[in-house]
């Protein structure tokens, strides 16, 4: 018997929470074949599952590795559903994200990116070991309102301050909010270098981004 829309949405969410990448892909196909709208599949299925995973992360039941695997399942489903979305309506808030030059530890950055995308941000991921000027150039070219930087190394922290200075030099500082995070980073350090905010983890990063950009 064909499954109802609700059943399939619940299954999509479950695949994400249970980190079942292949099953998420299959369920997304089954959902489309049953004639249900892709948008609902994403928002009430995959994203709902990712939100549950975020909650489990916040409750310390899931950890970084779990959330990364949940996101693999979410993206596998998204790859199936996304081509079937209608033309986009309201533009999403854009953010540029990356690990600062000199550092290659990108687990935390990837997690923040996933959570931000789940929360509806359009994240431009510059990857790891990102030349500092590239944050500024990309923010300008893409009209981004947010720059998110991370580092796990004490030796590369200074790059974050450089990016802030570069934004000032290019008269972009008022247009772009700067968020930072990573192992050795603290609120004190954020205050010291004039960043707009620091967050300790990916869930907090979403809350901070929303606060900085006055999103309800």
């Amino acid at each position: 018997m064909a499954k109802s829309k609700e059943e399939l949405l619940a299954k999509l969410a479950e695949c994400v929470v249970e980190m079942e990448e292949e099953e998420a892909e299959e369920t997304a196909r089954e959902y489309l074949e049953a004639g249900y709208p892709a948008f609902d599949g994403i928002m009430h299925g995959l994203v709902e599952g990712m939100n549950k995973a975020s909650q489990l992360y916040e409750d310390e039941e899931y950890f970084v590795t779990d959330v990364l695997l949940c996101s693999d399942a979410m993206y596998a489903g998204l790859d199936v559903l996304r081509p079937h979305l209608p033309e986009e309506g309201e533009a999403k808030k854009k953010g540029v994200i990356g690990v600062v030059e000199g550092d290659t530890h990108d687990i935390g950055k990837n997690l923040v990116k996933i959570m931000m995308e789940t929360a509806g941000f359009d994240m431009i991921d510059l990857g790891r070991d990102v030349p500092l000027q590239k944050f500024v150039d990309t923010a300008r070219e893409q009209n981004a309102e947010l720059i998110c930087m991370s580092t796990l190394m004490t030796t590369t922290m200074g790059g974050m301050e450089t990016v802030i200075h570069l934004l000032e030099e290019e008269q972009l500082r008022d247009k772009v909010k700067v968020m930072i995070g990573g192992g050795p980073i603290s609120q004190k350090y954020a205050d010291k270098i004039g960043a707009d905010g620091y967050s300790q983890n990916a869930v907090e990063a979403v809350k901070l981004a929303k606060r900085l950009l006055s999103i309800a």
Partner: protein
Amino acid sequence: MGEIKDFECTYDNSAGISSEVTGGLGLEFPDAYMHQETMSRLSKALKEHDGASFCELPFCHTVEAEALGGIINYGNDKTGPRAKEYICNSPEELLKLPEIDFSQGRIHEVLLVCKALREQGEHVVLQVSGPFTILNVLIDARYVFKGMRKKPELMKEVFWKLGNEILKFMKEAQDYGADMISYADSSGGVNILGPKMAGQVVEDFTYEFLKKARAELGKETLLLLCPKTTFALLGTGKAVLSDVSLTGPMEYGKACAEVIGKVDLVGQMCIKNVHYTLENGKIKEVKLL
């Protein structure tokens, strides 16, 4: 099983390579990271800049991975070498990587610097990386985490393949005179893996690995653990701490040098926290159970 606590890395410690350290040395970068003579000067400059009681080597966590075939961005005078691009996409590919040849390349130069610095009367702390840190250069971390969940036995093989190379590196370093070897794998800390997976890594790898390392190295070389590793051992009931008296209150680095030959394993503080002082004149030995 108890709870694995996390040790938070801070930035109130040795900042490593920076233009403050490299300025005035007349070195060419990144060339300076690759040759015995320049690495030796750099290591001494870093010691002086930090006011440390020992020389650190190398200046990055890419030496082992490079020797296994990893692709490295050698950096410049401000930032040291780091990973460039991944060379593997699966645990199976990792298992096919060649063994390390310690007689050539940057890893050989590092060994030569150990020898040279020791001959100049310096204490040398050779920083050796654990599997997660090495893997960070070779493969995207998500393949590692996925492997640990879906193919745990295969990942155990990967850990041991790397572990055996690390053991050989430690032994080589000892032969070249390193009197202190630090072992750290912060990319595999409980803050990233979570308590369950972190515990599994201790069970599957770290505990046995350190026992083997101790047996191989004997008393003449002190093994220093990153506190993240110490806490993982304590939290899984695989080790206990025991106080060892020093000749008086002193900085952690000096205390480590003082207990070489008397103690097997220490790890209460990050060795990069160079001015951390043991006010009570006691150092904690990590005793594997």
